[in-house]
């Protein structure tokens, strides 16, 4: 996996403590998969894994954006609403007959613009990210219902093609376009974090913002950038969601920001910032997806069990991070 080499630049030969959470997530994922395979014969079908990606592609993209934010020690609560708003705006504009490319451009601009504004508010007015993005969350959700109180179906040709296109092998296994897009986003993000100054500044700010400032790093610019990136990722996630559902609905993706944060944290990114990898986030999203799949395969369990399991896992992982953090001192 490309992102595996992310750890270049760090110790390669030992097992550094900061990578323990990622490895723990990987182990967990393998165990869950093994359980699935041993319980249900159909689980071993490769398409099961592909479906996890298809069903969670948009979540993965949004989680990648969130990884940037959390690495700086921030939080972005607006992502779920921005996803919904992007889908809503696309659906509404397409309904009005606007050509698809133009709709795409507009939809992809809204998220980063809101992110940029939130980042500026956080940086220039020194307001807690929690409050600023909470405001952003309410604003974006409000805009959804302002556009339409009811769900708007999408019938545009480009959208339906993107939705139905299957990229597969002769055996009949396939993924959607969304998965490819998500994969590209993951690769770009991983590269950015590992090999660019922007990425390294993100880690430095998460480690110690005061020091980062005194080392002459562009703290303000980087902070604004991560919220803009998160906004862009939410916008892409919103487009992917509208490919997936072929509609825009005002109350879709409610509470998604919390799933996203859970995925990032389970993926080993420390909430206080400074440590974590995009690869971990991919694993975190997969863990969430596999839990859902297991519960679907079981058939008798309520889907709320997903939440219960995620809650337990989240708690366990935060505890693990804390323990490592304490020993690290």
């Amino acid at each position: 996996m490309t992102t595996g080499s992310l750890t270049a630049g760090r110790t390669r030969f030992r097992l550094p403590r900061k990578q323990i959470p990622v490895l723990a997530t990987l182990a967990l994922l393998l165990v869950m998969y093994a359980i699935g395979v041993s319980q249900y014969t159909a689980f071993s079908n490769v398409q099961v894994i592909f479906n996890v990606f298809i069903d969670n592609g948009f979540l993965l993209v949004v989680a990648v954006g969130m990884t940037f934010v959390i690495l700086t020690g921030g939080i972005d609560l607006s992502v779920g609403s921005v996803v919904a708003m992007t889908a809503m705006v696309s659906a509404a504009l397409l309904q009005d007959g606007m050509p698809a490319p133009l709709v795409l451009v507009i939809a992809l601009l809204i998220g980063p613009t809101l992110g940029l504004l939130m980042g500026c508010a956080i940086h220039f007015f020194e307001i807690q990210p929690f409050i600023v993005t909470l405001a952003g969350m309410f604003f974006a959700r409000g805009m959804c219902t302002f556009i339409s109180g009811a769900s708007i179906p999408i019938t545009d040709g480009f959208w339906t093609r993107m939705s139905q296109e299957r990229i597969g092998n002769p055996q009949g296994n396939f993924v959607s376009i969304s998965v490819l897009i998500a994969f590209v986003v993951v690769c770009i993000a991983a590269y950015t974090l590992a090999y660019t100054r922007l990425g390294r500044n993100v880690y430095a700010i998460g480690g110690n913002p005061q020091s980062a400032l005194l080392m002459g790093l562009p703290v303000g610019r980087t902070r604004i950038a991560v919220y803009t990136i998160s906004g862009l990722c939410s916008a892409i996630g919103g487009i992917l969601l509208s490919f997936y559902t072929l509609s825009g609905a005002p109350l879709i993706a409610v509470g998604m920001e919390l799933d996203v944060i859970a995925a990032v944290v389970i993926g080993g990114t420390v909430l206080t910032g400074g440590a974590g990898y995009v690869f971990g986030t991919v694993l975190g999203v997969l863990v969430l997806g596999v839990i859902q799949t297991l519960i679907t395969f079981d058939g008798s369990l309520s889907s709320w069990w997903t939440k219960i399991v995620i809650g337990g896992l989240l708690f366990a992982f935060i505890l693990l991070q804390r323990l490592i953090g304490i020993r690290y001192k």
Partner: protein
Amino acid sequence: MTDSRPVLTMTGISKSFPGVRALHDVNFRLFPGEVHALMGENGAGKSTLIKVLTGVYDTDGGAITLDGEPVSFTGPMQATAAGVSTVFQEVNLCTNLSVAENIFIGREPRVFGAVRWGEVRRRARALLARLDLDLDVSAPLGSYSLAIQQMVAIARAIDIKARVLILDEPTSSLDAGEVAQLFRIMRQLRDEGIAILFVTHFLDQVYEIADRITVLRNGGLVGEYLTTELPQLSLVERMIGKELDVLEGIEEHSRRDLTALEEGTPLVAVSNFGRSGAVEPFSLTIHSGEVVGLAGLLGSGRTEVARLLFGADRADGGEVAVDGTASSLRTPAQAIDHGVGFCSENRRAEGIVADLSVRENMILAMQAARGWLRPIPRRRQDELVDKYVKALNIRPADPEVPVRNLSGGNQQKVLLARWLITEPRLLILDEPTRGIDIGAKTEIQKLVAQLSDGGMAVLFISAELEEVLRLSHKVAVMRDRQMVAQLANDESLDADRIMQTIASGSHREEADR
């Protein structure tokens, strides 16, 4: 030391803040290949001078030249780029990043925008080798001790074409061995022709390393001297601007008869008091009017003892008697009820509330003891605060100034006043004089002596043995989280004997986390 042209000159530097004249008409020059100590009490203008030099502050007047060219930096980054690098007291690096990255972040070698990690590591290794340091450059910085982190900060500072290196109190949290290592590096850099501006409060260190000394007092220049031509006593006199006889007064006082004090019931007696992982069980008695010194190296468990006695950490076992009756010190609230006060060593994080005024900070502990439902009348507050501002000579003598505007020494005095107002029976002072200047230090020492004369018991923790010896009736010695000895402070006790006690039994470990 060379006779060549100065690499840096500052002439006629003035700087005022609203209501304060921080610097007026100060001259300063720095030659290549010298270590130049900048000395002065807290508030003398050392930090301001450095901040003016590195462009953190604008000047109100005066000129700075670098290599003969007039310069005016707009910030530390620009100063660094021009070859004037600063390493601050607190290590300003990111412990979550690798050693190599800490040295190069912000100026990593890149190809098409991508950081060349191999090159970064190679250069970091070369640079550290120059400083004679053998580190794993890929390991996170946080896995090394504070001293090593400081050296990495220096490595970062000198990487570029640094010609002037400013070290702002780099030694305040290092132990003796680490200081020696730092000095070795400083000498080496000096020999390579780098001009080093060194700020410290430790006089001995100045005489060990500095070639030249500039003394500031109250924002003005006192003079520039060759270290060899300025005896230590003259230096101190020039720093505080008066003859130094106060210290001797204290000296006389302390060597009192311990046996007389130790008659009667101890104020606090603990036995088998300990906490696993923090400090081995110990026994200690403290009588009214007694000053018990606690000596030991950094990390030997001194602070842990203090925290146990104050109930900030809970002891695993052991007995506590207060005034001869069995009792307990399980929480700070209980300790305060028994009349115990605790001035933490970490005054910025655990003591001072920077945004509150001097008055509000002083009143805090007393208000807490009374309960929040019974506010202290403003007149009573003013009386108390006035009394202590005068008694402790707190400057500026304005109780409504936010504490953040005070110098470190004055903040420490405010913290002391906070506990003195509550009239504690046992006052625990953890490093009350660390990082403050000799004048304030003397005042605090004098105060401790007075308090004990007045019947207050004091547990005095300090890394400076001289100070412990000067004040204490009894010295408890800590080593490796054990209380290894309790020595009566009589004629036979001196710093050497305490050092021996600290050192004996086990080889000395460098504080390495």
